[in-house]
């Protein structure tokens, strides 16, 4: 069997952790090869090694049987290896065409010659069914189209090996289906695809084979068609995972969070980001706000938590008007917040894990006396949370948070916010970029909160999560709540329609 790319016995160490321990991955020509693993399992590290971002300590990479050295992304490019990053690398005020040729511009006497490039791009997009307007500006096109631009970038550079790093995280269900079709077409044309994902359904849908990593080690490479989903997830996590989120019917009681006619201004005073939104979250229920990214969810959450000023409206916690409260006072009233961006808002990355775990309660008498921190108590509390929430890190409570894996950073935030024993927990995409094991865990925590009689407001872009976890769904579109649905009766298609603005309830006072 001839492989187009072989990564043999790759070992990559970081201080205190072996990210890749003797991993072998072999990619056949024309196959879609999934790379599956928990957060911190070493998938990204392995792909970064292949893309030339890291140099491995041990092991070698072969292309078509020849050993190659990949010391930087340019070398990877020269070998025909291209990558679509999870966060696209596009210049927003450039056109599609300009973005595609960026770095490999065709010039004549130092002047740009776009004609040949344009012809090639048009030909490629027709051949692979990647319909985009070459003259549209990136900032004007949808996320799905931006992803197609990224794919075209790889094709334009005649890349044969295409790496997709969690490509579906930002897409709507319809867009995901299109992407799956594009990937199949590419493979049929002889391109080899490496596909990093957490989503077993997607692996089942497109991948031929799947390599599973766990804690930096290779678990095995399997044939997707003959392996059950449950088996794959067990390989990945090392134990059985419940897919269906088990939960009893909710028993909502009195309102915990009430929002009345909330309006938040836009960035350039042009369009309001949140328009006249009213809703209520009761104790003992999980209300989910579903919607495509960028429809005002972030602004709504910032307004609720006090990070951004509002234009008008009122916010009540347990019947108390907190509209003009500071962030700390809102927290004291029982508002907890798992933020969307864990690096920007969630953590002080240069602080140790224990310092981050007390970020919201360091000033309470439990952890300070006369302005002096009680380090002993902080350490004990951190160790307790680390044990309770299974937060893994290189040096325990003293680990600098920056060096922890994304999943464990998220676990630390979840631990901190839930342990504050909130009245209302606002969780914004709490499982973004996490693996099944961690997702299952966080979902269980959210439901446990609900069952304890707490109110949970979940903001999610993942429809599956929306359907599985919530008791009520509110769909947000362009800053307005356009519909309220019951997850028991609603279908994916129906929610998708609301999310895309194709349908709206008659001015529903979603209360």
């Amino acid at each position, binding site marked *: 069997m001839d492989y187009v790319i072989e990564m043999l016995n790759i070992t990559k160490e970081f201080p205190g952790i072996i990210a890749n321990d003797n991993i072998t991955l072999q990619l056949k020509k024309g196959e879609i090869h999934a790379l599956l693993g928990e957060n911190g399992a070493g998938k990204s590290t392995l792909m970064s090694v292949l893309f030339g971002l890291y140099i491995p300590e041990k092991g070698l990479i072969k292309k078509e049987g020849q050993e190659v050295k990949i010391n930087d992304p340019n070398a990877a490019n020269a070998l025909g290896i291209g990558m679509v990053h999870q966060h696209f690398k596009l210049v927003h005020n450039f056109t599609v065409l300009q973005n595609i040729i960026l770095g490999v511009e065709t010039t004549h006497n130092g002047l740009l010659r776009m004609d040949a490039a344009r012809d090639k791009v048009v030909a490629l997009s027709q051949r692979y069914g990647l319909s985009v307007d070459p003259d549209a500006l990136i900032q004007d096109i949808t996320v799905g189209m931006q992803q197609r631009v990224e794919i075209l970038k790889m094709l334009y550079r005649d890349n044969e090996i295409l790496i997709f790093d969690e490509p579906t995280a930002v897409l709507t269900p319809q867009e995901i289906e299109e992407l799956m079709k594009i990937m199949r077409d590419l493979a049929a044309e002889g391109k080899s695809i490496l596909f990093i994902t957490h989503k077993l359904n997607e692996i089942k849908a497109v991948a031929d084979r799947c390599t599973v990593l766990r804690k930096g080690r290779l678990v095995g490479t399997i044939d997707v068609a003959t392996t059950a989903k449950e088996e794959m997830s067990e390989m990945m996590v090392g134990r059985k995972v419940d897919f269906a989120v088990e939960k009893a019917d909710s028993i909502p009681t009195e309102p915990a969070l009430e929002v009345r006619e909330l309006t938040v201004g836009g960035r350039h005073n042009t369009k309001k980001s949140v328009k006249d939104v009213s809703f209520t979250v009761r104790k003992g229920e999980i209300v989910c706000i579903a919607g495509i990214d960028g429809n005002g969810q972030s602004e709504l959450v910032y307004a609720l938590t006090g990070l951004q000023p509002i234009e008008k409206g009122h916010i009540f916690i347990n019947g108390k008007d907190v509209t003009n409260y500071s*962030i700390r006072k809102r927290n004291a009233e029982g508002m907890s917040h798992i933020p969307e961006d864990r690096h920007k*808002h969630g953590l002080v990355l*240069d602080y140790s894990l224990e310092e981050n775990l007390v970020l919201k309660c360091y000033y309470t008498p439990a952890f300070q006396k006369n302005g*002096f921190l009680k380090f002993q108590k902080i350490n004990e509390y951190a160790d307790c949370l680390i044990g309770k929430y299974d937060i893994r890190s290189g040096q325990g409570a003293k680990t600098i948070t920056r060096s922890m894996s994304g999943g464990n950073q998220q676990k630390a935030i979840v631990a901190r916010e839930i342990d504050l024993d909130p009245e209302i927990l606002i969780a914004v995409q709490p499982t973004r970029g996490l693996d099944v094991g961690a997702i299952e865990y966080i979902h269980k925590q959210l439901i446990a909160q609900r069952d304890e009689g707490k109110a949970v407001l979940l903001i999610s872009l993942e429809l599956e999560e929306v359907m599985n976890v919530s008791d009520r769904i509110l769909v947000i579109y362009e800053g307005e709540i356009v519909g309220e649905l019951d997850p028991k009766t609603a279908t994916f298609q129906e929610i998708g329609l609301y999310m895309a603005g194709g349908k709206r309830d008659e001015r529903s006072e979603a209360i």
Partner: protein
Amino acid sequence: MILLKKLLNIRGFNNATSSIVAIFAGLLFGFIILLVSNPPQAVEGFIIILKGGFSTGGKGMGQVMYFATPLILTGLSVGFAFKTGLFNIGASGQFIMGAFAAVYIGVKWTFIPAPFHWMVALLAAAVVGGLWALIPGLLKAYLNVHEVISTIMMNYIGMYFANFMVKATVYDSRKALSMNVAESAVLPKGGLDKIFYNPIGSSGAVDLSTVNSGFYVALIVAVVMFIVLNKTTFGYELKACGFNQNASKFAGINEKRSVVMSMVIAGALSGLGGGLLYLSGASGRHIKAVDVLAAEGFNGIPVALLGLSNPIGIIFSAIFISYITLGGNYLQTLDFVPEIIDIIIACIIYFSAFALLFRNILPRLLKWRTDAAEIKNEGEDE
């Protein structure tokens, strides 16, 4: 080698080593300049620099401590701001404003009873220095004006304003210096006069060093800053804001107030430094009221860098820089042009400030060396 590796994993040791390596690099570079500028006397000159304050016995060491005192404070000022995410380039302005406040009170407010006069003067120095930094702090917090730009401008405003005020109120035009402060405003010797002096002849007369209890004040302030930064909720908040303002806001910390407080404290430290240097009697320093920014302010930057912004480290780095600077002064006994001396000393100081660089390079270099050795050993085994 393994022991060395283990030691390098301890942060404090690693930090101290990198500072020491940086100093050696600085000295080496200084020696090269000595060689280039005056080859025959290079070695002799280098020895003079190394002997530093010791060149002139007990008094010399006292002078090292006297000139280290303001450097400790300005170093703390820059280092404290840096730990809380701010670049305080305005130590010079805060320093000279504090100095003026101290001298003015020292000269004019003679109605204050003796034991309190110098204390009030020092307090005023800190308050005025803090107020001088309040303006950039407010600009940064509420209008997002970068503190580097505003503090630099405040340096010049501070210098000219202090000169103007000195000339208008406490100027001795015969000596072209600020007047001597009242006896009661001079910092007490605190026993240091019993240690740092040179005897003159055998009559028992002594040539006293200028060093006074201001040095104690500097040490105490450094320890206090260490405690504030590392042990208190206040320091925890300020550092959190320095590392990540968004997350601090998210956690309910008033991040605007923290920025203002950091700047004010940094300014107060510099201002106090000014007070400590100038409240030192007739033999000590006086404000010259010339249009030059106070060097003590800018030297706070290399002091903080060499001390890796650690308050305790800053004590040692300030003493080192004061020591080397004095050593440079004694170079004048040889055939060195004064400008060259300044260049040599500046090179040593600024090279030493690369401590941070060494801290990052050193472990990697050693790891690489040991790894290479291991691979070689493995190869031999096979």
